[in-house]
């Protein structure tokens, strides 16, 4: 513990990410003047991801989405080089080329990668892609410019829907294959997922629910030619985007005796990484998509949040706590999850977490006019709120969630409907 109570002068951030940059900025803003190393497996400085599935594909701008970085951060970059191992005893991060980076505080911000297609031979076909990085986005934008006869997306999440939306804007035929009965249900619940399914269909998306791929067909040059579905259907395409979720980048922590599993690196409310023994691992913190942390807004249930806002906030909290002389001076990470998406001409915003929600109600506007605000309840409390093209009053609902308001929250005033109908959510959890 002695090493953790003295002020750090060597900090290594693993992950040239939004969370990593947020932490770096906070460290310097809080007066940290020691060595600051930022490790990234990609060749790029920390960049912004939200445009990669929207503006970059539409070619509104290029894939150069580097995040603004104050000139005086004085960061030592190790880019294009993955971290291979963590030596907790010697307190060093070991890179793939063998370089040892000693630390007295280390931030794990390695995030996630796109979950690959499970069949490696099919995943390797020319024309089968995932979308996570700048390079992925640049390649897909290039493909879209060549106007494929049909783009197929597999997966029923936001990436699928955003890419499908871009394809329709570019007037490229597009199919979306979703294994579940309703798309987007894991993130926004069945009623909102059902609404978005109608919106997508209205925009000309060939949306197939309860559909999965049995096998892929390739031409003799190893290029994707068609998909055969479980129901026997066949779709001709040379452009498939696999968007079946994310996997956490924790393999490099194997052997470090940290509490890792498929949900990420377990940490406490101060963003301190926990060891396999369940106790804080000296000097190691976690932030962003890779962190699995107790959510104070949900009775400390463990959660991993893959959103932009959380990456920024958690990077900041972790950085403050890395500089704290002891637990008494640390601040708890209590960010209320939020995210946004733009697709099919609509802006969707969500605050709170819908996992485990048991009820749903549209409280302003209506689905029919495609402008509404809806709330999610769990055991009688309001836990989340979503807006479609009507974010103006969302902050009032955010406050209601933070106050633990009963469901549905009775917020009258302007634009309010006369009557609120509550729906029961069956098995809304993913």
């Amino acid at each position, binding site marked *: 513990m002695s090493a953790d109570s003295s002020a750090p002068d060597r900090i290594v951030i693993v992950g040239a990410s939004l969370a990593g940059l947020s932490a770096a900025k906070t460290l310097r803003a809080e007066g940290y003047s020691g060595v600051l190393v930022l490790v990234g497996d990609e060749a790029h400085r920390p960049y912004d991801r939200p445009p990669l599935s929207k503006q970059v594909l539409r070619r509104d701008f290029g894939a150069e989405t580097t995040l603004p970085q104050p000139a005086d951060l004085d960061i030592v970059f190790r880019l294009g080089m993955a971290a291979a191992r963590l030596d907790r005893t010697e307190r060093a991060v070991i890179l793939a080329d063998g370089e040892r980076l000693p630390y007295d505080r280390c931030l794990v911000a390695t995030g996630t990668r796109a979950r690959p297609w499970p069949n490696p031979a099919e995943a390797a076909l020319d024309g089968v892609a995932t979308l996570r990085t700048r390079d992925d986005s640049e390649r897909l934008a290039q493909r879209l410019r060549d106007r494929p006869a049909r783009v197929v997306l597999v997966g029923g999440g936001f990436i699928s829907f955003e890419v499908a939306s871009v394809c329709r804007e570019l007037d490229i035929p597009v199919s979306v294959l979703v294994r579940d009965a309703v798309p987007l249900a894991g993130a926004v619940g069945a009623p909102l997922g059902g609404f978005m399914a109608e919106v997508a269909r209205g925009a000309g998306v060939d949306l197939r629910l309860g559909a999965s791929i049995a096998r892929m067909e390739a031409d003799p040059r190893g290029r994707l030619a068609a998909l055969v579905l479980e129901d026997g259907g066949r779709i001709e395409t040379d452009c498939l985007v696999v968007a079946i979720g994310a996997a956490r980048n924790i393999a490099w922590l194997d052997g470090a005796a940290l509490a890792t599993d498929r949900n990420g690196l377990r940490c406490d409310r101060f963003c301190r990484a926990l060891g396999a023994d369940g106790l804080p691992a000296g000097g190691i913190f976690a932030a962003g998509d890779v962190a699995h942390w107790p959510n104070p807004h949900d009775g400390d249930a463990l959660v991993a949040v893959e959103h932009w806002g959380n990456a920024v906030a958690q990077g900041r909290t972790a950085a403050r706590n890395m500089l704290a002389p002891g637990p008494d001076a640390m601040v708890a990470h209590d960010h209320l999850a939020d995210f946004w998406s733009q697709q099919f001409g609509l802006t969707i915003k969500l605050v709170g977490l819908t996992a485990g929600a048991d009820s749903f109600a549209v409280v*302003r506007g209506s689905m029919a006019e495609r402008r509404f605000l809806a709330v999610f309840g769990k055991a009688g409390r309001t836990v989340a709120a979503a807006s479609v093209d009507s974010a*103006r*009053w969302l902050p*009032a609902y955010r406050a209601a969630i933070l106050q633990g308001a009963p469901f549905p929250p009775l917020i*009258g*005033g*302007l634009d*309010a409907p006369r009557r609120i109908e509550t729906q029961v959510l069956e098995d809304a959890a993913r």
Partner: protein
Amino acid sequence: MSTLFERILDPANRADPYGLYAELRRQPICPQDDGTYVVGTHAEIDRLLHDPRISSDDLPDPQHFRWTGHPITDLIVRPVRAEIRKRHRPFIFRDPPDHEALRGRVMRAFSVARVRGMRAKTERLTRELIDKLAGKTRIDLVEEFSYPLPVTVICHLLGVPPEDEARFHGWATQLATALEPNQRGDEATQIKNEETFAEIADYIQDLVKAKRREPEDDILTDLAAGDDAERMNDYDLIATAVLLLVAGHETTVNLITNGMLTLLRFPEHLERLRREPEIAPRLIEELLRYEPPVHYRTRLALADIPIAGTTIPEGAPVVLLLASGNRDPSRFTDPDRFDPDRRDNCHLGFGGGLHYCVGAPLARIEAEIALVALSRRLREPRLLADPPPYRQGASLRGPSALPLAIAGVGEG
């Protein structure tokens, strides 16, 4: 013992209300003895600007007044005037859905191209006004510069003939009392407002007729155009035109005057602006934070609002003290320091939410051109009175005069 908000309204505290604001911020939501809730912290102001339970439709009902005993006045003149005024409710005092339709029309008329197009005209006016100061050693910046510049610009944009500009001075000052809760409820002020409104409404009505006969490239022509279905009704048209004129008279004047006052208090920044005019945009954002032209806006709670550990009850008048939020140490580092290099300057100088200032882009352009030119051309400017005398208003707060000594006027 007067309440904190009464002390804020007291003209004696106009020159430096910031100490009172700091006192007020000890509690995010401050109930006053008269049932008004004053909000002075950044987070809570921002919350309430985005709350559906907050209404902007809070003008007092003009129907209740005392009898004068004069039957024509009591039974005809005042009720008719009161009714006329009531029907002319400008969109800053309206709620959705009406507010959206009206504001949307104005936003379209206040187009980016049109506002940008004012740059050259503003530069020319600025040059001419400063040229006129040549040979003087003492000037009043308000009368000779800060007032005529934005007034000429807004009149030109709207399409008010230059020869009529002078008539608006008194009208605008009178009607701006609608933003001051301590003045607008008072009967004498209401009578005066009704009279003033009748005059200005007649004037605008005639102008609208002229624009419909002979359309020109100006905002009033745009607002008066359109077929019957989408056209604004005449009440809304007049109310909107009056609002834009009053706002154009009473706010940018303060921004320019407060700007020069602040730069003369911190001459190193005046000198820096002179040498590096490219810092102007950020400097003006800091001015909007540090000495904003509008200090507060009033609202009405439509329902109980639980916030910051208390509840604002339904029906309560709410005062959002924007200028206090701008000095909130929990939002801004070292908030009482004027720092033109400040980043992350999320000030409330133009309000926020649905009613965010429509004229913000124009105000920024005018302030930039004016302050850069003043910094380059006034030789050795010096304040002759600090603090300067202030005008009556606590919301639209600004000096009534800014007497300066200058050693001459340069070419710039």
